[in-house]
């Protein structure tokens, strides 16, 4: 049967209707710009990728964005000033002393300080804060427990005297460095207890709020949107110049740059090297550079036959064009580093003996029985490396360098999670990775890089050296600074020439901002001290 078409009620003017709708919406929306509200006095907008944060509680925070935020809201017993990570200075503590055996620490607190709730910042709050971290036993808790602290180790001797008793010896320099980290922030026990649910020490509440006596209070954290910090009106060091800081989540660097250039943000945290170069010298902008504390390295697994022989590992080290990598691939957004303690840390060893020497590398391979080189698989992450370039670009440069001495590299790119799985299972041949220390002390690097018993980098690369591991322990236990530094010099020297790595570079960090931003100082632990900033 032939279809009967019923006259419908369809509008006759589809075209007109459709176009008019789009036009009206577009014009209406474009024209109806909302009257911009008067900006509150001294508000700063920072464009940053804060997508990695999962909690702003200092007992949980362990990612860049959450550490940055937590640091602004809490004070610690001791801290670092500006960019200098070599010398802890008093913050809430007025003074401290340690027993000759290094086991008992006594801190005298500053008097009369108060949390925003009005509660006193006293010895009981310090004891509560440390016990809370250890009892919660979340991600960063090991920083405290590794020092030999446990629940009950911290005691209030009186209102303003707190004593920490360690179970075993831990290096005093390293101990103070750990106490600067957000995990050792002092929290307001009253606020935590008021919001405690099912014995969580207020962890759920503090994920999106703050209970410290730092310069800022966390007003709002909307994951994937923004973090809003308001000045703490009763901050004990005085009113901070910027009353509101909005950290806007902008994951894409091009969008960050546009916001900065339009003046909708004053600081853009995550620009790529070429974007930084574009803004450098441009009127109205400034670039603040600092040294990150990451170490980017090429790991060689001794479980893979050729790398058992140190002459092969040395050949790899001689094959790499370190200067070219830093200059051309990283566009000078890094410095060459070949030892495992970064510049700026105690124990830094500036030695960089390796440079590209194809002849020497070939000769070493020849001596080791690989005159025609060999094939090797390199794992690298699909993400971005320290210095702002993709890992794959660094890998491509290394492939080219190694090809010149006869080593054929096959690059396997994968997500960081997949790479770690293989690396932790020691199933790689070569790996391109970075390492960032958790606290600014050489021990935080010597352990992963040289002590296989820690089951970290040395172990993953099947580099088992008991003598070296003993020396790492000895350096950690050495109280006298000179003896300690000598041990780190020996350790870094030895690993440089014999270890399972070719350490490549230490990234620079370049942050672009409007020239109206004053007093910005980069700090590789917590990015910057917002309280010090001002706007012209």
């Amino acid at each position, binding site marked *: 049967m032939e279809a009967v078409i019923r006259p419908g009620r369809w509008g006759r003017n589809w075209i007109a209707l459709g176009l008019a709708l789009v036009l009206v919406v577009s014009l209406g929306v474009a024209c109806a710009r909302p009257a911009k509200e008067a900006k509150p006095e001294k508000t700063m907008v920072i464009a940053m990728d804060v997508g990695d944060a999962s909690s702003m509680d200092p007992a949980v925070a362990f990612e860049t964005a959450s550490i940055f935020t937590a640091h602004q809201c809490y004070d610690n017993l001791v801290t670092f000033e500006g960019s200098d990570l070599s010398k802890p200075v008093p913050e809430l503590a007025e003074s401290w002393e340690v027993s000759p055996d290094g086991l008992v620490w006594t801190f005298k607190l500053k008097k009369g300080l108060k949390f925003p709730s009005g509660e006193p910042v006293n010895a009981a709050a310090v004891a509560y804060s440390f016990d809370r971290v250890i009892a919660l036993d979340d991600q960063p808790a090991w920083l405290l427990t590794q020092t030999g602290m446990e629940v009950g180790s911290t005691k209030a001797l009186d209102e303003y005297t707190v004593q920490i008793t360690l179970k075993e010896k831990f290096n005093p320099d390293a101990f103070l460095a750990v106490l600067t980290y957000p995990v050792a922030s002092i929290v307001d026990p009253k606020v935590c207890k008021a919001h405690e649910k099912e014995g969580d020490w207020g962890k759920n509440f503090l994920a999106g709020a703050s209970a410290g006596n730092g310069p800022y209070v966390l007003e709002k954290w909307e994951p994937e949107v923004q973090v809003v910090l308001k000045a703490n009106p009763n901050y004990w060091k005085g009113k901070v110049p910027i009353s509101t800081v909005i950290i806007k989540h902008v994951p894409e660097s091009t969008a960050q740059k*546009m916001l900065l250039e339009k003046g909708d943000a004053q600081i853009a945290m995550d620009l790529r090297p070429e974007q930084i170069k574009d803004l450098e010298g441009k009127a109205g902008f400034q670039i603040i550079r600092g040294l990150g504390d990451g170490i980017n390295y090429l790991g060689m697994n001794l479980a893979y036959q050729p790398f058992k022989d140190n002459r092969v590992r040395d050949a790899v080290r001689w094959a790499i064009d370190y200067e070219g990598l830093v200059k051309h691939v990283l566009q000078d957004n890094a410095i060459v580093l070949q030892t495992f303690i970064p510049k700026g840390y105690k124990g830094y060893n500036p030695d960089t003996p390796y440079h590209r020497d194809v002849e020497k590398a070939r000769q070493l391979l020849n001596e080791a029985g690989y005159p025609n080189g060999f094939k090797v698989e390199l794992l690298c992450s699909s993400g971005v490396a320290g210095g702002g370039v993709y890992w794959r670009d660094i890998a491509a440069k290394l492939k080219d360098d190694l090809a010149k001495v006869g080593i054929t590299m096959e690059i396997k790119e994968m997500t960081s999670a997949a790479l770690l799985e293989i690396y932790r299972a020691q199933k790689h041949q070569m790996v391109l*990775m970075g390492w960032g220390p958790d606290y600014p002390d050489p021990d935080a690097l010597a352990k992963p890089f040289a002590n296989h018993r820690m089951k970290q980098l040395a172990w993953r690369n099947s580099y088992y050296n008991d003598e070296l591991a003993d020396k790492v322990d000895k350096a950690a236990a050495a109280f006298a600074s000179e003896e300690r530094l000598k041990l780190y010099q020996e350790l870094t020297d030895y690993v440089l020439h014999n270890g399972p790595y070719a350490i490549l570079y230490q990234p620079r960090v370049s942050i672009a901002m409007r020239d109206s931003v004053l007093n910005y100082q980069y700090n590789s632990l917590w990015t910057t001290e917002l309280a010090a900033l001002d706007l012209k």
Partner: protein
Amino acid sequence: MGLQAVIVRRLALLVLVLFGITLVTFVLTNVVPVDPIVAKLGEKAKPEVVEKMRKEWGLDKPLPVQYVRYVSGLLRGDLGVSIRTRRPVADDLRDYFPATMELATVAIIISVALGIPVGVIAAVRKDSFLDHVTRVFALGGASMPIFWMALLLLLLLYYRLGWLPGTGRLDILLAEPPKVTGLLFVDSLLARDWAALASAAQHILLPAFCLGYFSTAVITRMTRSSMLEVIRQDYIRTARSKGLAERVVIYKHALKNALIPTTTVIGLAYGSLLSGAVLTETIFGWPGMGRYATNSVLNVDIPAVLGVTLVSAVVYALANLAVDIVYIFLDPRIRYH
């Protein structure tokens, strides 16, 4: 079968489909050779901490036990806790899905409002200059990488001309209206917050256009080709021979029939826009489900991946159901058995 019966039957089928999907997703996410806890904690995590968290998340149990636990939770409305964000997956989805829904809805409105009229013009004036222009327009939509176009539009309309805002859903200094639905348009209307409404509308225009361009192109081409097919039919000739005005022939007789395949495309496009628009959301800093899904996959966040998959499946199924219902209105001869 009546319309109500069709809907009930389809919804009942959806429940079965959802269980199938949870099973497949569960198995697939678990065969990936990545430990979700290591992915979350990073390379420095001590083995004992990894072990402790694995227990906390119940990942130390055999897979069938984990699945049964998951499904029984699901029946109670519990989607589990995200390993990455540490929040209940349902809470995460409640936050991120409305943002994507708002974006996808505006995108599809733009696509339909542009795509159908342009497709009709192209068909009616086949091989004219206008037809060629629409072909180029459609080709652009189908072939231009979305991130490239998004950056270009951002550069032009935000950076150079300053007509539209850059990123986010709302002006940074505006307070968000009280959250009721999570849809800023609706919430600001409910709160009679006109400034927020205008700001939300401004913010959504660019990302929605970028997101909708591809669908616009597809809808345009589909409308054009089905219109061309329909206007060759006998009944169109009959309508014309009856002396009806060309406008009546095209819009009253031809377009309605030509819209059936276009409706299918619209339904599918809406479903796919709703289930995530990763690149658009990344470039425009849009806190939606696309970014949530990507981050969850990259971090092997199994509960979150399962949650996102479930929502996507529901969205697709409902979009298809909606398309089928629209068919009935477009062509009353269509019956479902």
